[in-house]
Every structure is written in structure tokens, then in C-alpha cells.
């Protein structure tokens, strides 16, 4: 029995008592916290942009990565680049074409999604580790291009200023309004991911993740489904990119640099790379570290790297898995002989064994 099957059977167990209402209570509490955040912090003009909004867009982009990893079995390092494409599109439309922001946002989401499809066309024929390497390299192609193309991206200078717009009654220049818009966008993205994963499309994707051969034999177009999944994740990442522009008021190559790419990965891993909601926990940890680690250490990257490795070594389900690990420990104590020894997988559930092959061509 593999971990995924164990998890699946655990998930299928009917929940009783505490187990049933606890998640709902937690959910409500998190939402209350998130919505009251601007009113509890002492310096909202610092906390809202530096921690709140930044965590939300980092989280949304990381969520697109988690979606691909968990439900499609592809770990894409191009998600930041895709968000960058949509952010750059906004910048281009607003700064170079001098059109309103909302035009930029709309075109940005479309172009970002198209970019994701392109990435998929190049990379989705490969899998696992190859997919990771290729998407990393594709991200760097975009970075190199963005740093050089004066005509489109304004090269290293980047596109600025991109002012926060007024949309109807909403004045996004007001930091509190922007925070609530970002929060609602994050919730919408989350629900969208949840909806897709529980749809027929999502179930097919998971079937392909677990056994591409079988699904192909059943007549499914595996490649097509993967591209579609990439497109959906690209859409989510593009939303993150729009939010990023609103937060930063500018876009420059730094947005898609290797470090930014790794930031998103670190957020996903610390949050728990199998959890759609956990990414926001990871994002909060990373933004807190980047703002406050200077108070106690000069070595921010070393600290981040250590946390990253420790999570991978000892808590592969990340922050999101803390509760589950505790529960597993407890149930193990209660029922030692029925609980099987199962090494934790990276993804949850982990990739099926079939995904590891000797060629970088898929299946």
C-alpha cells in the first residue's frame, strides 16, 4: 500500500465529532483573522503591503505550483515566470501603450495563460525531474529576455510607474481597499482550484498523475490534459502577477529572477507542497523572515535554506501537515498494528512510482 492510498483511505473515513467541525472552525477563524488583519495590526501602512499583500500574491503564485504538483504530478518552476509575463503585460499596456490599468489586467491574464500553454507545449512531454529542470530553464529564458529587451520590457530599468487604479467605487490606491481586494482574489483563486480539482477534469488529471498509461489506454489525451492543467495553473499564476504589479507599482527583471523563482518554491515547500491553502502559511513565514530576520541575523538566505531543508527532511507536508502529523502520531499510538510504516512522500500524495523513468520522455 502506498502513501497515496493510505491518505486516500484516511480521507475517505467518515469523520466524527471533533474531526468534523474542527476544520470548519479553523476555516472560520482564519478568515476572521484575515479580514480583521488591517484593524488588529498597529501599523497598517507597513503590515498591509509588506506582509499582507505580498503574502497573498506570493501565495497565489505558489498555489498554482502546488496545484500542478499535487493534482498533475508536475513540479513547475516556471510559475513565477508566468506571473511575470502577466505582470509585464500589465506594465507594457499601462506604461508603453498608456491604456487604463484594467485593460492591462485583462490582457495580462490572457497573455499569462497563453504563456503557460507555450511552456506546457515545450515541457509537458517530459515529466518529474526533467520537467523541473526544463521549466527552470524556460523561466531563465524569460528573465534573460526581460533584462535585455529595451523595446518591450525597458530592460533592466523595468516598466514604471504603474499607478494603482480606481475601479468604480474601489480606490486601490487606498492600501486597505487593495488588501481586501487581494484577499478576495486569493479566496476566489483558492475556491477555483478546489472546484477544478473536484470536477471531472480534476479527477481525470489525478488519474493521469497516478497512471498515465492506463488513462491513455482508456482513450484520454494525456498530453492535452496536461496542457489544459498548465493553462489553468497559468491563469492562477497570472492573477498573482496582476496583484504583484498592484503591490509593487513597477515591474522589472528582478520579478522573474532565479531568486524570485526559488522564493515561490520555498513558499510552496514550507507551506506544504501538497496543500492549496498551506501556501499562504508558507508565504507569511517567508515575508516575515524577509522583513524581520535582519533583527537577529545577517544571513537571511542561510536561514531560509535551513528551514527549507529541515522541512524537506522531517516534515515533507510542511506547515499544512503539522496537524495531520500530530493526528497520525496519535492514531499510531492508539492503533499501532494497523498503521503501516509509510515513508512520507514529497508531494501528498507522492508521485506514483511509474513517474520515475530512465528517459526524459514521458510515458
Amino acid at each position, binding site marked *: 500500500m502506498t502513501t497515496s492510498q493510505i491518505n486516500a483511505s484516511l480521507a475517505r473515513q467518515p469523520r466524527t465529532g471533533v474531526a468534523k467541525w474542527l476544520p470548519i472552525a479553523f476555516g472560520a477563524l482564519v478568515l476572521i483573522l484575515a479580514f480583521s488583519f488591517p484593524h488588529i495590526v498597529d501599523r497598517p501602512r507597513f503590515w498591509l503591503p509588506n506582509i499582507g499583500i505580498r503574502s497573498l500574491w506570493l501565495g497565489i503564485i505558489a498555489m498554482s505550483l502546488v496545484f500542478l504538483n499535487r493534482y498533475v504530478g508536475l*513540479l513547475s518552476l516556471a510559475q513565477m515566470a508566468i506571473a511575470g509575463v502577466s505582470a509585464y503585460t500589465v506594465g507594457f499596456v499601462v506604461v508603453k501603450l498608456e491604456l487604463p490599468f484594467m485593460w492591462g489586467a485583462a490582457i495580462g491574464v490572457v497573455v499569462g495563460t497563453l504563456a503557460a500553454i507555450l511552456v506546457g507545449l*515545450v*515541457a509537458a*512531454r*517530459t515529466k*518529474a*525531474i*526533467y520537467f*523541473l*529542470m*526544463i521549466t*527552470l*530553464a*524556460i523561466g*531563465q*529564458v524569460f528573465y*534573460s*529576455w526581460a533584462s*535585455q*529587451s529595451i523595446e518591450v520590457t525597458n530592460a533592466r530599468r523595468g516598466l514604471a510607474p504603474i499607478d494603482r487604479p480606481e475601479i468604480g467605487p474601489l480606490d486601490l490606491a487606498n492600501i486597505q481597499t487593495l488588501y481586501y481586494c487581494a484577499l478576495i482574489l486569493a479566496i476566489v483563486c483558492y475556491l477555483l482550484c478546489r472546484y477544478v480539482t473536484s470536477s471531472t477534469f480534476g479527477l481525470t488529471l489525478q488519474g493521469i498523475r497516478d497512471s498515465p498509461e492506463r488513462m491513455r489506454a482508456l482513450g484520454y489525451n494525456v498530453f492535452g490534459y496536461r496542457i489544459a492543467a498548465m493553462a489553468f495553473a497559468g491563469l492562477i499564476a497570472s492573477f498573482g502577477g496582476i496583484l504583484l504589479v498592484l503591490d509593487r507599482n513597477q515591474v522589472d527583471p528582478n520579478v522573474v529572477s*532565479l531568486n524570485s523563482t*526559488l522564493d515561490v*518554491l*520555498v513558499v510552496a*515547500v514550507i507551506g506544504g507542497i501538497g496543500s492549496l491553502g498551506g501556501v499562504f502559511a508558507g508565504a507569511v513565514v517567508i515575508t516575515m523572515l524577509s522583513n524581520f530576520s535582519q533583527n537577529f541575523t*545577517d*544571513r*537571511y*538566505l*542561510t536561514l*531560509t*535554506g*535551513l528551514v*527549507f*531543508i529541515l522541512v*524537506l*527532511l522531517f516534515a*515533507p507536508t510542511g506547515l499544512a501537515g503539522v496537524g495531520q502529523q500530530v493526528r497520525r502520531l496519535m492514531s499510531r499510538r492508539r492503533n499501532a498494528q494497523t498503521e503501516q510504516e509509510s515513508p512520507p*512522500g*514529497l*508531494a501528498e500524495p*507522492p*508521485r506514483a512510482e511509474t513517474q*520515475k*523513468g*530512465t*528517459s*526524459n*520522455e*514521458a510515458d
Partner: protein
Amino acid sequence: MAQFLMIALNGLTLAAVYFLVASGLTLIFGLMRVITMAHGTSYLLGGYIGYVVARESGNWVVGALAGAVAVGIFGLLIHQLLIKRFQDDDMRVALITLGVSLIGTDLMLAAFGGTATQVPVDASLQVATVQLPIIGSYPLLRLLVLAFAVIVGVLLALGISQTRFGAVVRAGVDDAQMTAATGVNVPLVFAVIFALGSALAGLAGVVGGTLFPLMPGQDGTYLLFSLVVVIVGGMGSIPGAAIGAALVGLVSQFTLVYAPTYSLVLTFALMVVVLAIRPQGIMGRKS
């Protein structure tokens, strides 16, 4: 014509450095089916150690040996402490080594500073040139690096195809479980290969650090280039790494002249083209 050949030769000598880095990566992958994202870190660390030792001892060869050996031990430590347990989980190995590279970048910056250094060689060697037909005078140092890479490549290829250890490695590539069943100590072979692959990156760091500056950021750059080289050449194949390195080196030098603005973009685009035509890489095997 002379200019064309000159650029081609520059491309090949640059490729020599790329090959040295990528050969370690492809060797490790060939046997263990894992990718170490700390490979760029090994390159830079090797370069820095080579720089310090060569400067103190006044001898480049001592520096090169020190860089290779120290990074070999570094690789062994990473293998034993962090990734041995996850031998079968290639994804987790990639991510853990990525974490190692984050820490490595930061600690090397703390130790060696942000300014660039270069591994010192004898001044007479630095200015020495040789007369080549058509091209004319050409720096001897770059030709020596090319020759060195060719020798390392041939030794690696022969080592794998001709020696008993190579036979074990080849058997391990084909079927690790079956190899273990025949009494070969596979974990030991894995550890040796991982250390050897890291040592190659360290050695490449000293060689590359003699021609080009060593500074923060070079670790990421060389990781990316070696990934591109092995993807283009075909993962796990030493001749593939050589072909991949040559292509990447040539494309980067020719584009530097004919399309300098997008030189790096086009170099990476090479990978996309190869993948579109031949997803397993030029010398990669199709299963």
C-alpha cells in the same frame, strides 16, 4: 574566415569549461537518476578553494587538486547526510540540494566577499600565445583548457567503458536492483560516484576560475548552463555532455557577435529547439 574560426575556437574553449561542470552532473544522473541542484555551488566552492590554495602555495596544480578533493568530500558529506535516505525520491533530492545551494550562496558570500577573484596562474602563461594557421595568434591558456577537458572526457568515457568499476556503473545504470543482487555494494558505488561528480565540478571551478572571474551569482549561472548542457546532450551520457557543451559554447559565442542583445536568450532557446525535436536529448536513450 579567420574571424569565423576564431569565434568557433572561442566557443569550443568556453565549451571545455561547460563540459567539465556538466560531466559531473551527467555522471551522477547516469547512475543514480538524481539531479543535484548544488552543482553550481560545487563549481564556485571549488573555484574559491582553488584560488586560496593556489595563491598561498603559488602552484596552480596544487590549487586544482585541493579544489577537486575538497569539493569531492563536500559532495560525499551531502550524499551521506542529506540525500542517501531519499535515493529513490529524485524530486526530493533535487529540492534538498536546491536548499544546499541557497545556503552555499550565502555562506560563500560571507566567506569570500562580493568582489570578483580569479585563480592566479603564472604571468608568462597568461600572456603566452601560439600561432595557429588562418586564425593567427591565440592565447595558449585557452587551448590548454580545451586539451584538459578533452583528456578528462576521454578518461571518463574509457573509465566507464573499459574498467571493472565502469562495468559496475553501467550495470547499475541498467538495473540497480539486479546489480545489487549480484553482490555489488551499490550504496558504496553511489557514494563514490556522487563524490566523483562533485569533485569534477570543483575541478571545473578551478579551471573556469582561471579564465573567468569567481563571484557570487556564478553558482546559479553554472548550474543553469550545466542543466542546459545535459538536457541538450542527453542526460546520463558523457559524449552527450560533450556535444551539448560544444553546442552551447558555440551558440553563445556566435550570438555574442551576431545578436548580442539576445545572446543568452538564444543560448537557452537552443534547449527548447532540441527538446521539440528530440525530447530525450541528442545522445539520450529512449526507454
